[in-house]
């Protein structure tokens, strides 16, 4: 059973991410702790290449919830549309619990092609130190964890 087989368009079982983007996501999560941080990494449609890191404001400003501001959301999608991009990664942090999709995360996931990245800052908060960094496919309420491969640069 391949993740994403419900839509049948892309069957990656690995998230490949470059070191700079990985570091940027972790830095954002640490900076915004104890609130949840969120954002996306866009890439050319159908390419599965996470190329363009875009930090978003958590309009909920909450330690237990995130939501892109509705005006920012429209701007983001118009921009991606104009550039023939799609969200390759949708990321957010959990600040007191593990890096696993909550029931809310699963219910609201609406990008069947995206890698949902979760970072947990519960161990070290704003400080230096390792974080949990995990990636999932969430399609039709089904969660499939996938491997994360960090490379120096995308080939």
């Amino acid at each position, binding site marked *: 059973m391949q993740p994403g087989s419900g839509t049948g368009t892309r069957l990656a079982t690995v998230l490949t991410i470059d070191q700079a983007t990985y570091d940027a996501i972790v830095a954002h999560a640490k900076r915004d702790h104890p609130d949840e941080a969120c954002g996306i990494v866009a890439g050319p449609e159908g390419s599965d290449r996470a190329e363009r890191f875009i930090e978003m404001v958590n309009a909920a400003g909450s330690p*237990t*919830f995130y939501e892109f501001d509705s005006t920012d*959301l*429209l701007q983001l*999608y*118009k921009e991606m549309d104009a550039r023939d991009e799609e969200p390759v990664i949708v990321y957010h942090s959990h600040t007191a619990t593990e890096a696993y999709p*909550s029931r809310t995360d699963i219910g*609201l996931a609406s990008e*069947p092609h995206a890698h949902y990245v979760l970072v947990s800052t519960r161990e070290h908060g704003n400080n230096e130190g390792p974080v949990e960094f995990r990636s999932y496919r969430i399609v039709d309420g089904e969660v499939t964890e996938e491997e994360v491969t960090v490379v120096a640069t995308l080939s």
Partner: protein
Amino acid sequence: MAIEVKIPTILRTYTGGEKAVSAEGASLSTLIDDLEANHAGIKDRLIDNGDLRRFVNVYVNDEDVRFIGGLQAELKDGDSVVILPAVAGGAR
């Protein structure tokens, strides 16, 4: 009266994969009924208990409809409507 409606990836199962469709209506409410007539099932993904779903955003000419009357927002020929699911979640 033709209004272009942009459809998000998750709802393209109702539009045969189309990213945008043409629909008619003098208000968002009648526009959604017209969408439903041609793309059965889509209405339920947008409306719950007679109201726009909390985690669905609809924009008319780049304005969030929540600020211009919600389902009663008026539409005219040539308007552009964008539907986007909220990007949201969290540990709660």
